[in-house]
């Protein structure tokens, strides 16, 4: 049927992109959650093991990944709220494009400062 790349070649509306991002972010965060559970569980092995592991987390690559994670959760959350709003108040769907743009704007407004703040530690 429709090939994966073709999901990107169709020119739908903003909703098309927001859905792709929501899905990628959701799955991405889920995969992180799986890893996160494992590492947190290691706490049961005592401080030594755990603290050692945290080293990994402090590597710059990981710190950048962390920024992405925050971005993904943030976007997924804001967009999730949009989905809930239109689901429970179908009347708002008359404004669907505007709502989608609003999600984008809110996300950028929150994420950019946060990212700069978080990345400032990496640079240090």
């Amino acid at each position, binding site marked *: 049927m429709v090939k994966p790349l073709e999901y990107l070649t169709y020119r739908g509306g903003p909703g098309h992109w927001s859905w792709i991002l929501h*899905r990628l972010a*959701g*799955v991405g*965060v*889920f995969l992180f*959650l*799986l890893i996160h*559970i*494992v590492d*947190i*569980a290691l*706490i*049961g092995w*005592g*401080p030594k093991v*755990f*603290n050692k592991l*945290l080293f990994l*987390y*402090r590597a710059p690559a*990981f*710190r950048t990944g*962390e920024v992405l*994670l*925050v971005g993904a*959760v*943030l976007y997924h*959350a804001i967009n*999730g*709220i949009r*989905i*809930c709003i239109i*689901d*429970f108040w179908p009347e708002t769907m008359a404004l669907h494009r505007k709502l989608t743009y609003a999600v984008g704007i809110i996300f950028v407004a929150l994420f950019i400062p*946060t990212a700069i*703040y*978080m990345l400032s*530690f990496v640079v240090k």
Partner: protein
Amino acid sequence: MNGAGRPKPESGLELYAWIFMRISGIALLVLALGHLLIMHIVHNVDHIDFQFVAQRYATPFWRTYDLVLLWLAMIHGVNGVRTVLVDYVSPRGWRTASLASLYLLGFVLLALGSLAILTFQPPMAP
């Protein structure tokens, strides 16, 4: 009538899944964003170590918080990935197999995580 497929009988499952996604989403908005704010922004991984965790888990509030977060995120995530799999994996066998693996993985990790949160014994403060 090719491809029409008889509609599958109604079970209501999808409806409940749908409503759960929305309610858990709203809860996660507070829990997950709160979690991120505390652990990755206000504090950051530079501050976090065994000690930090131990202090936090000294109060039942944070344990409960993390436990609820874990459960909701896990079920929300598993159900989310279920929809993704159901979308893209249509051959019957593959679909069943991938869903089974997902549920198994979800279950094991949920158990593991819960165990970690519940059984964690903070060592006496020195």
